[in-house]
């Protein structure tokens, strides 16, 4: 250091060295004396302990695993003997020699399959490849479609920009028609698919019901609601939307009168359907009633003045009246097609099973309307209320049309009362109620009759046994008095015999005969004897009150002197009542209460180690182990020994290498493959929760 500093001697450096020297002079600390032998040894021991404990604790998991293992096969880590399945051999094989590795790397590079002899990706691709002509055709097709798409897109863009409402309306109509046509075709060509469509319609209706559309809850509706106070038009628009909602969400029920008209329309085609019970069933359904009561009302008003009605509905959009007039004419044709579709669908339905509800209950007409509404949903988005107005118009028109076609006089079932404002649904309801009431009455009658019968029998019985009861009045004060008349009361069924016994039982010994006769007449009062016996048994089982009163303590004693009552009461030890007898509720049975202790010698009375409660142990021994009750395979698995050693094999201690390897894999031998179930996870969680709760507190 000094040499280093020699070359450039600066004053600052000098000062520094001086300081250092000074420090050295001041620093007079010497080396510490070495620790005593004892202490060094202690430290060494500590270090050694730590080291070895670390070493040893590495084995802990292995030891624990082996302890837990169901079965240990020594020597450990043995390959299971016997033939292996080819898949295992193939899958488990690893390239070890350099040559093999090279081969495998080559294979891998060329994407050759290693395990499964399936095609390589390239081969698959080549297989998938097509011929040139095919490819060309395909390309042309694609081009064409792309061009078409672009044309269509451009057209649509243009169309979208058009602001004319009328244009959109017309377009919608066109689409509707198209769709209807398609559907008709489908009905003809592929009825199953058409049915599917129908189902989808129903589903979309359901969705509509679930959604918040047309519920007057949107932004527009809210603004209208504010306006409604002052603006008549806004109010009407709102109402209209609500109506639309009702229309859309209404479950379609075919009212009876409508059915009739259907009958007229297609009497020869579907006579069965009209007479079907289903729709009526639906009407009876209380969940359907609420809606029904509104709809038929509407219909009735239709019926009253069918030509006026559509115009009434059309009122809200007053300015559009003329347009709608035009539309109506267009719709007339549409209606026809609709009706056709309707009929066809019915036919379809007829062919189908009547079992399923989902297809049967919805009315075709409504579904149709819905499907149309679905069809131009985007249009709805653009001009919501406008479209709805048209839609509701359309439906109402349809209603009107249908009702118009029906001659007013032809209503034998509905009756005149219905015409005067009573809705059919109400009538239905009334009918149902009456029926149920009747039922109830019948039921009650039944009950009452049976009751009375019972009562009379009881009365009779009591009259018969009046004298008996009088004598047994005292006994009846006791709680558990069994009436002898209650015993053996089960009435007997008489059995017809095809053959009558001819031979009289020829009893050999006269003595025996006498015995039999005696037996026959001995049991005259069998029942009361039995009851007496039973009572005696009960009495014997009842614990006796222990009287510990000593005469003379605290009072006079002597001959003829009873201890006072209070004293007797005080020193009387009352024993807790025994558990209720098993035969308490069985009048003609006596069950011995005495415990049979003979089996106790064979029972387990001390639980083996991990068990703490008897119930745990009982659970583990609930199923038998032996061959008599189990299959051979099961017995072998259940009774497999815990440790298996192979004859002649050297069992060596677990090597360290094994241990390191085992930290990744498992050490233990093959376990017995019982299908073990995972514990109920939920329960564990709840338990943990509980513990947690406790800890928190």
């Amino acid at each position: 250091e000094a040499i280093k500093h020699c070359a450039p001697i600066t004053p600052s450096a000098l000062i520094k060295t001086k300081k250092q020297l000074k420090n050295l002079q001041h620093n007079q600390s010497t080396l510490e004396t070495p620790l005593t032998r004892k202490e060094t040894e202690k430290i060494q021991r500590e270090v050694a302990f730590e080291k070895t404990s670390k070493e040893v604790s590495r084995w802990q998991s292995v030891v624990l695993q082996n302890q837990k293992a169901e079965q240990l096969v020594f020597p450990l880590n043995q390959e299971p003997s016997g033939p292996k399945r080819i898949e295992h051999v193939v899958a488990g094989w690893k390239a070890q020699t350099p040559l093999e590795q090279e081969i495998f790397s080559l294979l891998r590079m060329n994407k050759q399959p290693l395990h499964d002899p399936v095609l390589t990706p390239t081969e698959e691709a080549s297989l998938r490849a097509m011929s040139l002509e095919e490819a060309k055709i395909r390309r042309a097709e694609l081009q064409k479609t792309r061009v078409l798409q672009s044309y269509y897109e451009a057209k649509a863009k243009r169309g979208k920009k058009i602001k004319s409402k009328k244009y959109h309306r017309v377009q919608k109509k066109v689409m509707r028609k198209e769709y209807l046509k398609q559907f008709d075709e489908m009905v003809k060509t592929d009825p199953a698919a058409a049915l599917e469509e129908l189902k989808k319609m129903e589903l979309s209706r359901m969705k509509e019901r679930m959604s918040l559309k047309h519920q007057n809850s949107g932004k527009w509706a809210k603004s209208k609601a504010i306006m409604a106070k002052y603006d008549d038009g806004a109010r009407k628009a709102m109402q209209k939307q609500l109506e639309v909602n009702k229309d859309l969400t209404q479950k379609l029920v075919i009212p009876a009168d409508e059915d009739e008209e259907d009958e007229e329309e297609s009497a020869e085609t579907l006579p069965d359907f009209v007479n079907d019970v289903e729709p009526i069933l639906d009407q009876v359904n209380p969940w359907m009633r609420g809606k029904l009561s509104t709809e038929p009302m509407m219909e009735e008003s239709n019926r009253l003045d069918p030509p006026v009605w559509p115009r009434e509905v059309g009122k809200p959009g007053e300015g559009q009246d003329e347009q709608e007039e035009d539309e109506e004419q267009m719709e007339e044709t549409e209606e026809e097609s609709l009706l056709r579709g309707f009929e066809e669908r019915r036919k379809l339905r007829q062919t189908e099973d009547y079992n399923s509800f989902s297809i049967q209950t919805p009315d075709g007409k409504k579904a149709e309307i819905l499907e149309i509404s679905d069809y131009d949903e985007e249009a709805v988005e653009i001009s919501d209320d406008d479209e709805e107005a048209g839609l509701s118009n359309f439906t109402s028109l349809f209603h009107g049309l249908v009702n118009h076609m029906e001659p007013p006089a032809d209503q034998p079932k509905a009756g005149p009362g219905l015409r005067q404002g009573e809705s059919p649904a109400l009538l239905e309801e009334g009918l149902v109620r009456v029926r149920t009431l009747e039922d109830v009455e019948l039921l009650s009658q039944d009950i009452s009759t049976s009751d009375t019968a019972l009562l009379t029998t009881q009365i009779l019985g009591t009259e018969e046994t009046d004298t008996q009861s009088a004598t047994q009045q005292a006994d009846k004060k006791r709680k558990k008095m069994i009436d002898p008349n209650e015993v053996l009361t089960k009435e007997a069924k008489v059995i017809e015999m095809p053959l009558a016994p001819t031979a009289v039982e020829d009893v050999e010994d006269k003595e025996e005969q006498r015995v039999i006769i005696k037996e026959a007449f001995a049991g005259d009062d069998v029942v009361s004897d039995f009851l007496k016996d039973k009572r005696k048994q009960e009495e014997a089982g009842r614990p006796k009150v222990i009287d510990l009163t000593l005469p003379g303590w605290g009072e006079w004693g002597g001959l003829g002197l009873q201890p006072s009552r209070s004293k007797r009461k005080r020193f009387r030890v009352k024993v807790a009542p025994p558990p209720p007898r098993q035969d308490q509720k069985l009048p003609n049975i006596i069950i011995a209460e005495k415990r049979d202790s003979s089996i106790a010698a064979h029972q387990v009375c001390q639980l083996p180690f991990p068990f703490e409660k008897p119930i745990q142990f009982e659970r583990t021994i609930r199923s038998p182990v032996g061959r008599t009750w189990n299959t051979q395979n099961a017995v072998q698995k259940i009774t497999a020994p815990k440790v298996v050693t192979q004859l002649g094999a050297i069992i060596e201690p677990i090597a360290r290498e094994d241990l390191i390897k085992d930290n990744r894999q498992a050490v233990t031998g093959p376990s017995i493959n019982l299908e073990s179930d995972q514990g109920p996870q939920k329960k564990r969680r709840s338990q943990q929760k509980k513990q947690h709760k406790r800890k928190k507190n």
Partner: protein
Amino acid sequence: MAASSETMLKKPHVGKKRKPPTRYWERTEEDGKNDGKKQKEGDNNEQTPQQNNTRTKKGGKRGGKRGGAGKKVISGKSDPFPGSAPVPEEKLKKFRRGVKGELPPRPQYKLRDVVIRSEAASDLAQKQNARYDLMLPEDAGFLEGDEDEDTCTISQDDIVDAVDITAGAKYFNLTLSQFGPYRLDYSKTGRHLLLGGRRGHVTCLDWQSKQLMCEMNVMETVNDVKWLHSEALFAVAQKKWLYIYDNKGIELHCIRKFNDVLRMQFLPYHFLLATASATGFLQYLDVSVGKEVVAICTKAGRLDVMAHNPHNAIIHLGHSNGTVTLWTPNQREPLVKMLCHQGGVRSVAVDKTGTYMVTSGMDKKLKVYDIRAYRPLQSYFLPAGASCLSLSQRGLLSAATGDIVQVYRDVWGIPVTKPYMAHRAKGSVWGVHFCPFEDVLGVGHGEGFTSMVVPGAGEPNFDGLDANPYRSAKQRQEWEVKALLEKIQPELIGLDPSQLSQVDHSTWEQRHEDRVQVLGFDPLAKEKFTPRLKTKGRSSSGKVEKRKKQVAHEDQRDVIRQTVEDRMKIDKERKEKEKKKAAAAGQKSALDRFRK
């Protein structure tokens, strides 16, 4: 192609930002795909438990490989049905033993391991048993009459004409008019028949081959005859004593301790011969060691009605005062005393499963009891009363009235009005007995013996290791040794045969109490909750109480929660069942309108 163009047509209507609204006509394909996905998911679900299983078994090399094997096969195809075939629930139910409980908590991991392992073992056993149940394919047939023809009018001759020659040979008569009414017994395998005439004629024969094994006259009144555990020995209750003969007719023992025996029953798994005597004694003889086990004075007079419950080896005795008593050799008084008839009891029979008891009495009634609950199920009135009853393995009841033997089917179900079969014997009937594993009813009467064909009487599936009708002599010897090794001690007889698998609770409790006294505390008691001490006023008495309340009644709450859950589950199951039933019925009920 058409579909795709349609979709293209629809596209421009939709704004670019918005997601196109789903249309039902577009949804078909997607749905299909979804379905496929669902299926796949289901498959995965099926596979996951397997994987879990393999994971739980540490070091289970085999298990691991097996789990992998389901996916990869050499051909590159995956197994469409991985894992073993499922076992139907019904069959599993049939082999269920006891109920699973909940596992012990995780801290007790050793106990938990043991419990899990035993559950797995019993599950395996149950599943395997259910799986192999299909090895018992035979089913019993029944006699079916033509339209408006009662099966009871079909005579034995008609049946014999209709059936094949071997089955027809099972109907035969032995005319033995000399030595009076006959008692009979079939051996456990149903191969051998033992007849004992009242006037001393005793004979045993292989009734199928009609080969006579021995025939003799004991020159005394014979009250009853009974085969012992095999066809090599039989017991005869003679006028005074009980005798034991071998199948050559050589008298092996005369047991003087058993006097005036009227009826006998043999308990095959206990090797016990139970006898009821005229003096009112019920005695048990252990035939494997030849010792009397117990003699019980029933104090009920002459005992000539006896039956045994094959399920729990309890002896049923019928008495003249209309009661039926149930006995074990371990108790000197009846376990149960049932008042069954207003007159004396004439005959008792118990069915194979130990569920039903049929009694007939002097009051000419025939009653069916559920002897698990001791409740009367059915009561019939027979115009002449029934003297002898016997129940077959399949639950057919034969009742003899005078010289007519009637066979009833399913007497404990819907009340019957007519017998299933009827046959007139030549003399008054003295004993009836169904032959095990055969559709045969043996009738002993005054004029000899009649073997009747009763279709549907015998169990068609026999257990070859238990009672093999076709066993050879060697097999019989082997069976005998095994049966003796597996002999059940008479102390184990009780009303509940599964009692042995229960811990002796009283002794255990006693021991536990002793332990508690020694330790000074109860190791099993749940530690009492003591709230932790908290600072800053959070351990005020009010707060402490509050905290205590939070954990109070936790067990009770658990129980309540459990019961509510169970109830909901049951409700759900019931609803499902109802739905299924409705679907199965196919017809709509009146209440269906409220559905949906």
